[in-house]
């Protein structure tokens, strides 16, 4: 009777000129509440200007290793009408690097075709991609610019959450 809710993947944008990056997931009964959960879990500190949530079932994820093991992605039985897919890639092994970042759009009938088109397009530096995510635009729920004041701005005033607020604390080294 008491079961977990569906999982939503969360994407966070730190400033208007940066890409949305996958930061983790939350469980919620619907997208609206997933967005609120995402704010509490991932934005207790500055900075964020936008959050997206996507039901985990809408994400088509594949790693370079999986593509290498199975070079031709299975084609769908029937191509329905095309829609826009957002393309996300992971292109670095640096540990501080967030996982997959939003890098562009592809119009296709299925995520598998979107992946093929993305790889062939030359737009996404495909040889350097470790992980691809394709997400239908229609599956994304986004925070609105009007939400910034209520969702994200309060974190700026909570300076005591920042380690820099405490300066350098050491009884043995020069006291400040």
């Amino acid at each position, binding site marked *: 009777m008491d079961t977990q809710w569906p999982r939503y993947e969360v994407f966070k944008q730190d400033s208007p000129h940066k890409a949305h990056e996958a930061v983790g997931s939350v469980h919620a009964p619907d997208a609206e509440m997933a967005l609120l959960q995402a704010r509490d879990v991932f934005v207790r500190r500055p900075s964020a200007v936008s959050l997206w949530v996507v039901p985990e079932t809408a994400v088509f994820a594949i790693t370079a290793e999986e593509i290498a093991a199975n070079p031709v992605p299975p084609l769908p039985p029937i191509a329905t009408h095309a829609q826009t897919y957002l393309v996300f890639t992971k292109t670095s092994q640096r*540990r501080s690097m967030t996982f997959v970042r939003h890098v562009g759009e592809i119009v296709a009938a299925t995520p598998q075709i979107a992946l093929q088109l993305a790889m062939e397009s030359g737009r996404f530096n495909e040889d350097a991609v470790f992980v691809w995510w394709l997400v239908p635009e229609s599956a994304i729920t986004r925070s609105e610019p009007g939400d910034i004041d209520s969702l994200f701005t309060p974190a700026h005033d909570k300076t005591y959450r*920042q380690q820099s607020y*405490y300066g350098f604390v050491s009884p043995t080294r020069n006291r400040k």
Partner: protein
Amino acid sequence: MQSDPVDTDRLQEFETRIARGEKIEPGDWMPDEYRRQLIRMISQHAHSEVVGMLPEGAWITRAPNLRRKMVLMAKVQDEAGHGQYLYHAAETLGISREEMLAALLNGRAKYSSIFNYPTLTWADVAWIGWLVDGAAIKNQTMLAHCSYGPYSRAMVRICAEETFHYKQGKEMIVHYMSSGTPKQKAMVQDGLNRWWWPMLMMFGPHDTDSPNSPLLIRWGIKTKSNDTLRQEFINEEVPELLALGLTIPDPQLAFNEASGSWEIGPINWDEFWQVVRGNGPMNAERLAARQQAHDNGLWVREAVAAYAAKQQA
């Protein structure tokens, strides 16, 4: 360990990737034992964050002033968030959040032994920040280099936040020891007497008694041993504690000029295993508090689900 020839090739390729410094991501091939060890470690780690809210949460209503209260609430909220980051990382390995929560509530899952000690005075809140979060940061900074992508990224995020936890605790101890009343200083010393040894046990058994360590190190899950991390932490913190005029509750503690290390007396591993096996001073209370929170939250979960259903209709 792997007898299937296909798996032997894959295992070799997997270990080569790790040696090259690549991260293993969800979807990539991994040995079953790698998955099993990660699920064990990450879920225990998540439970520790969640149970870790309880000893400090008990002092929110009794914080000595508004500033300390806001700081403590922010810290406890962070620990809730850390639990969420880690449950997410474990879920990418194929275990469900529900299974993990059930294991915590029915007592099958383990969590850090330190949270089974009571917080008797306000100074304990400060010591948890300095020593417990400090010890956790040592371990987590190492795990940020972990070969499994989701765990490594969760650790990077957590370490950035933990530095605030460590500093707010240390700031309090420094303040009480430099300008506090004799009573406050005595309270701080009493806290150190009680937290010092359990904190050292947090790093886990000696290397000679940690059978999983060699494999974890070979697969890049851990990059340093328990004893190495413990000794690094002792060397960093002992001079700081002594500079404040505190007495460390270990008559055998001595600086070894040759090795440049502070050497400690024997750790009481019987106590450690008693606490791990559920017989610590607060094990039963902690689990009862988690169960109560889960039960008391049921109406909220039901209300939220009802709201979602209504929106859909």
